[in-house]
């Protein structure tokens, strides 16, 4: 560092350079602390880019935010809990202020959790916020996921984000399970006990894996400290990492929007992040926090003092995991016992293994690959930034509802004992019913949903062609009655006709010149079948010519009004009119010719 303030010769070389320093000072609007920071980090540009991001407004777009905020709430309250929680299975005599447990030998983990609940100011509230926050976190992740699914927001270019989301939902469940086990109370201990059984049911290696996890025979002394590391260190780090990537992708892809006037595949109509969306989102954080805090202040959750300390011999009626693990518990309850058998000196616990261990990877894999399967079947490789109204993708909606039905049956099955008491039914009958429902429920749900979507589409079509029913009945001089249909505004109509309705993929070349079925053709045949499954029943939106015809039919009262300027509204969606060849066929043609 030189303190002499004279121009050195080398400086002369830069004479022609623009004066960067000067320029930045001139153009930069930032002063004060923000300017000081920008000078040192160069953060203003990306930040302002980010802050000018536009977000569309729809309540269902906030579901992801509920998940994000409740995750943050869990992270914050979790830190508080770590100050007092002792992750150890060392046995101590409880001497805190909860009378019905005084003098009982319990583990350090349990006793410290009791202390948080009874002897640390605000401890119980924070514990309850942490637990209610965790429940609503996983709830909102799942509901967010269904929103993304039914609106088709997972389509290109957002498939990776869908996979990340799938991963997040799985991690969230596992994180919840690990945390739920930490207090070492009777109920969560039963959960760990069950987990031990699940692990042992893995064919051949089960018992080794169990010894590995528990550091010896169940329960051992290792499981609580291990789950603690997983719960406060490993999984939160992974969750926050994947979540950050997830949000970055949302920024990169921009948010999707529902179709509407002025909203195209190439723009985002909404409010900029700063200040409007920031204010809304910031406000929403406090609303979410407020709701969780309020509920935590008045409704008890996981009263571990009632469950008592963990001890391998007792068990309580109504032992269930937290709801997000309920589906696996339910699957376990539904699996019949006779599936267990012995061969080759091994026991194959097929009465446990499929429901407890196998189900998890299967479920999340099916969810994760769905976007790829759909785009393969539909042959749709284009980018989509406009959301589908769920009814406009009837088969997808049907598949989604079928999946939700199967999941819900399993979830409810895990509460079969409580249902039996509350509804005065036999638990055996309920179990049989759930077994049946698991198989027939999804197809019925699929069929029903698809039918409902198709009739909604038909209703939309009617509405576009004949206008909205007004409920006003006119009587003509000749005695005829007619209900008056009011014309839709071009804006209303646009929302009902903008979507496309692909025709099923047709495939012609099934064999090559020599009559040998080519593997490609076979694959394409499967694809054509699936495409048929997706698009066979379709209700196409009205085309301009159909609309024209409807007008000449004279259905509306005020034709003159209708005929002005509605063509702009209807054209963009149906360019090329009804005669246009659906893109799937084109695609297949190209494949055939190669």
């Amino acid at each position, binding site marked *: 560092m030189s303190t002499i303030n004279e121009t050195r010769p080398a400086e002369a070389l830069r004479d022609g350079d623009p004066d960067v320093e000067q320029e930045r000072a001139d153009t930069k609007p930032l002063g004060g602390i923000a300017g000081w920071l920008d000078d040192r980090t160069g953060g203003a540009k990306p930040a302002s880019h980010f802050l000018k991001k536009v977000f569309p407004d729809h*309540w269902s777009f906030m579901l992801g935010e509920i998940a994000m905020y409740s995750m943050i709430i869990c992270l914050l309250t979790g830190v508080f809990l770590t100050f007092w929680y002792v992750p150890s299975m060392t046995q101590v005599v409880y001497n805190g202020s909860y009378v019905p447990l005084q003098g009982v030998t319990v583990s350090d983990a349990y006793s410290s959790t009791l202390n948080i609940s009874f002897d640390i100011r605000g401890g119980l509230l924070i514990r309850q916020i942490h637990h209610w926050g965790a429940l609503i976190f996983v*709830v909102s992740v799942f509901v967010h996921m269904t929103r993304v699914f039914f609106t088709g927001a997972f389509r290109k270019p957002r498939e990776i984000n869908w996979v990340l989301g799938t991963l997040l939902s799985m991690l969230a469940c596992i994180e919840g399970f690990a945390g739920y086990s930490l207090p070492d109370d009777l109920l969560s201990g039963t959960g760990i006990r069950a987990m031990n059984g699940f692990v042992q049911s893995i064919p051949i290696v089960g018992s080794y894996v169990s010894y590995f996890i528990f550091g010896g025979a169940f329960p051992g002394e290792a499981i609580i400290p291990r789950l603690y590391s997983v719960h406060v260190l490993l999984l939160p780090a992974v969750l926050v990492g994947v979540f950050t990537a997830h949000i970055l992708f949302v920024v990169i892809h921009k948010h999707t929007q529902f179709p509407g006037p002025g909203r195209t595949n190439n723009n985002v109509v909404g409010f900029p992040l700063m200040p409007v969306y920031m204010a809304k989102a910031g406000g*929403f954080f406090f609303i*979410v926090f407020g709701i*969780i805090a309020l509920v935590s202040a008045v409704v008890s959750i996981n009263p571990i003092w009632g469950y008592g300390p963990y001890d391998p011999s007792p068990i309580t009626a*109504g032992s269930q995991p937290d*709801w997000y693990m309920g589906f696996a518990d339910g699957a376990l309850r539904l699996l019949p016992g006779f599936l267990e058998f012995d061969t080759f000196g091994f026991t194959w616990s097929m009465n446990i293994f499929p429901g407890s261990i196998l189900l998890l990877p299967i479920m999340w894999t099916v969810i994760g690959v769905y976007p790829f399967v759909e785009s393969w079947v539909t042959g749709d490789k284009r980018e989509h930034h406009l959301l589908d109204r769920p009814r406009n993708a009837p088969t997808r909606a049907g598949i989604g509802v079928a999946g939700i039905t199967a999941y819900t049956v399993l979830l409810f099955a895990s509460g079969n004992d409580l249902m*039996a*008491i509350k509804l005065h039914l036999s638990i055996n009958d309920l179990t049989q019913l759930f077994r049946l429902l698991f198989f027939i429920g999804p197809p019925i749900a699929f069929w029903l949903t698809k039918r409902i979507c198709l009739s909604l589409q038909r209703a939309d079509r009617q509405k576009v062609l004949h206008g909205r029913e007004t409920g006003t009945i006119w009587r003509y001089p000749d005695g005829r009655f007619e209900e008056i249909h009011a014309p839709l505004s071009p804006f209303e109509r646009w929302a009902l006709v903008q979507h496309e309705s692909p025709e099923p993929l047709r495939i012609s070349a099934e064999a090559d010149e020599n009559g040998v079925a080519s593997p490609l053709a076979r694959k394409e045949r499967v694809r054509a079948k699936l495409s048929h499954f997706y698009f066979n029943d379709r209700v196409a939106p009205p085309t301009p010519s159909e609309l024209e015809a409807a007008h000449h039919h004279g259905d509306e009262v005020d034709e003159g009004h209708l005929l002005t300027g509605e063509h702009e509204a209807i054209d963009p969606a149906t360019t090329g009119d009804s005669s246009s060849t659906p893109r799937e066929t084109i695609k297949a043609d190209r494949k055939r010719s190669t």
Partner: protein
Amino acid sequence: MKALAARRRHPAAIAVLILLGLLVTGGAYSFLAPKQAQATTVTADSVAQGKKLFIGNCASCHGLNAQGTGEGPSLVGVGAASVDFQVGTGRMPLAGPAVQAPQNPGKVKFDEAQIAALSAYVASLAPGPAVPDGEYTTPIAPGDEVAAGQTLTNSQRIARGGEIFRVNCAMCHNFAGAGGALTRGKYAPALTGTTPTHVYEAMITGPQSMPVFNDTNITPAGKQEVISYLDAIDNQTNVGGMTLGNLGPVSEGLFAWVFLLGLMIASAVWLGKKAA
């Protein structure tokens, strides 16, 4: 115990259980603890009054001499405790066929004297467990005092009652005594609001699917501790707030899905409607 557990679902289990219950209460109990103090003074008078009541209200099912019919089991040897429990909790006289006689505390058909008379009559047929006196049915008050003949403080005895409860009863009645389901529509009822005497009698008579807990199994002092524990959790302030029926994660999950999510979505919709 394991083999027994596996056969619980067998159709004959009910019959076997009732038989066992009768045998155990009527037979084994009188051997093991025959000298329990009789709570009500039995007079020939009350036995006669009890017989009259019995013939009027119970004989249609239990037979004129309580020997049992197709409609109801024999009551010979079930003891005064069983009658006091069954009639005092409103289970008997049975209103109609059901998988199990439901408790009906609001609709006890007889007053205390009549129940005592009925009990005296049934007890006069053959020896059986008697109605307990107050010694072991008064809940222990929490505190640091050590009662005579005890090594633990009162609070610690309540806590030990909790341990006994969790080991012996929670699997059917739930950790908080909120009740639980058994096979084929049978259930272990909620214990909240059951009087200490009835709790004691339930343990020594083992109504229906419930096992008998005789005095070697759980000592009278242990039974008192269980009663005290149930009393303590019944009377404690729910520090966490509303308990949602103490049904564990199922009710919590339901609450989160319906109430919490409902509130969240309602406020999201509300916020979405707010003009920018």
